[in-house]
């Protein structure tokens, strides 16, 4: 197992390198010049030039990139062009916020997908199955922000049960933290729920058709044992795979959701950085997001052997 983890982490390095290169390239295409913005409204061309020189923006691209890479390898992602704070510090401050939101969203998605997927699979063609299929298709189709608006209108403005926007750190008040993240997490998790439900449904249908499920029934096991013990264990592998994939999508979704619900997480940080072309911040956030996705995949991979004895090392 440690061997596997080590090998996978090693394999991740080229991915990180390519992602950082791509991000660097893309930021160059973004219109606007950070030096102009930074130097202020009434700056003379000379002042703008000085600023550019100070930021190292006059150096050739590969020098700029090399400088960034050198720092990154030592855990230094540079400083924001605007407030000169170390990017690492700003990111670390916001990671727990986004992490909490994402974890809640995944938990909602998975916790709701298990019953809905199993009911769909075991009552195939029933009114329940059709209702779940309909709602989950809608869940995939509805854009995040539209659903967010509906939820805010209904639960915050209409019923007044939940706060519309804002954030309270977990360390301050876990209850308020939860209440503030409830709507955004639901909104963020809907697409994942729909996707995981679909996966569980088809995996369970497939597993319940297998010969071993017939054997389990022929042994006189209770139906719930056939479903939740025998079929579920085999269906859990694709279900967990798709859940892992959802984490990646979900991370992308936080950008819009955080903005909409006024949550000071990584996504919001990234957006404001893009507006002002704060290259080190953009780079940093993208790299951190990539690491999160890689680590998630790694976690999923290490779960497989626990569930499937065939891939368990002897």
């Amino acid at each position, binding site marked *: 197992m440690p061997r596997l983890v080590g090998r996978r982490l090693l394999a991740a390095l080229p991915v990180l390198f390519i992602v950082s290169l791509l991000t660097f390239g893309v930021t160059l295409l973004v219109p606007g010049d950070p030096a102009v913005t930074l130097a202020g409204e009434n700056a003379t061309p000379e002042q703008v030039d000085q600023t550019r020189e100070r930021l190292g923006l006059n150096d050739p691209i590969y020098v700029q990139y090399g400088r960034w890479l050198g720092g990154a390898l030592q855990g230094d992602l540079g400083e924001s062009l605007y407030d000169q704070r170390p990017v690492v510090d700003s990111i670390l401050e916001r990671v727990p916020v986004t992490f909490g939101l994402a974890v809640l969203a995944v938990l909602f998605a998975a916790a709701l997908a298990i019953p809905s997927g199993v009911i769909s699979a075991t009552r195939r063609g029933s009114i329940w199955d059709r209702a779940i299929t309909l709602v989950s298709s809608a869940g995939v189709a509805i854009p995040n922000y539209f659903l967010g608006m509906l939820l805010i209108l209904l639960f915050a403005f209409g019923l007044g049960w939940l706060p519309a926007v804002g954030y309270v750190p977990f360390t301050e008040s876990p209850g308020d933290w939860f209440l503030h993240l409830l709507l955004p997490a639901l909104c963020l998790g809907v697409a994942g729920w729909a996707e995981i439900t679909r996966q569980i449904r088809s995996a369970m249908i497939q597993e319940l058709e*297998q*010969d*071993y499920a*017939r*054997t*389990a*029934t*022929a*042994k*006189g*096991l*209770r*139906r719930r*044992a056939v479903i939740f013990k*025998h079929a579920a*264990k*085999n269906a859990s592998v694709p279900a967990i795979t798709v859940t892992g994939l959802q984490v990646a999508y979900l991370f992308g979704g936080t950008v819009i959701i955080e903005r909409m619900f006024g949550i000071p997480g990584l996504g919001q940080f990234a957006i404001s950085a893009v507006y002002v072309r704060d290259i080190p911040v953009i780079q940093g956030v993208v790299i951190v997001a990539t690491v999160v996705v890689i680590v998630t995949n790694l976690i999923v991979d290490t779960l497989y052997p626990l*569930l*499937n*004895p*065939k891939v368990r090392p002897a």
Partner: protein
Amino acid sequence: MQPSTAPSTALAGTPASTRPPVLQIEDLSVEFLTEHGWVTVIDSLSLTIGEGESVGLVGESGSGKSVTSLAAMALIKHPGRVSGGHVTLDGVRLDRLSWREMEDVRGKKIAMIFQEPMTSLNPSFTVGEQIAEVVRRHDGLSRKQAAERAVNMLDTVGIPRARERARAYPHEFSGGMRQRVMIGMALACSPRMLIADEPTTALDVTTQIQILDLLHDLRAEFGMALLFISHDLGVIADIADRVAVMYAGQLVETASADELFARPSHPYTRGLMRSMPRADEATETFFAIPGAPPAPWDFPSGCRFAPRCSMAGSDCTQGPIPLIPVGAADAASRCLRTTAADLEGPHL
């Protein structure tokens, strides 16, 4: 150790009719929903298996052997349904039991071994656990006692180092060993009735013989009734007291094993016997019944075997042929010609 046709249970000497029945299949019909609509696949089949008796059910692929055995377990599910008749186990009509009540019967009173040893075990659980859960479910044993029973069963079915192997997963076993596990699982609660649906078809010849020997010995040890399904008459000869021959969803002949092998009545049975490879013959000529069995939606209205039968006459296709008693007690044949004296020896 060679399998033999010698009686192996205390009751084996007595004729079937005087033994209390364990499994009674009466007038059973099963149909499936296909692109041809509802198609009758099993047609008014009756079969009684007495206490400790071993009945062989034989027939070509697609004749309805597996469907019959699934019906006996009340395991027919959509797109199939039992459209007539019923199954009685130990005096209890299974069609009158709820699904939950049926769950108490399966694995406890009637158990089944399937045709496909490679896929019939759950790949994600140890074989020990898969046996143990049956006895936990039916005999209410504790986890520890059940695990112990599982080891005993593995030992009984001839798996070496049973205690250690109980912790192994199905993919660590060969096909023959998996079938042993399936047998151990089926016998774990000492059922009164065991159905073995082609338990050796998927195995190589040596393993086949070993599994047959094992079933033979275990039947003596556990004293259960056995419905042994095969498309191979040679295998049936080794294990059955009585034989039932199926063709196109119907029973076409039934007789004691001795009677059937000495004097097969139905032309189909005789065809099956002729197509058996025989070790004592130097000539390597293989006989096969000409033609192929009809599809269920194409069953002829008269004798279903008539299109392939060399003895068929115009009277054979007039209408359904009943099972007609022939010679010995309990023997019957679904053929207008078999009562006649024009029967020759088994090899025509």
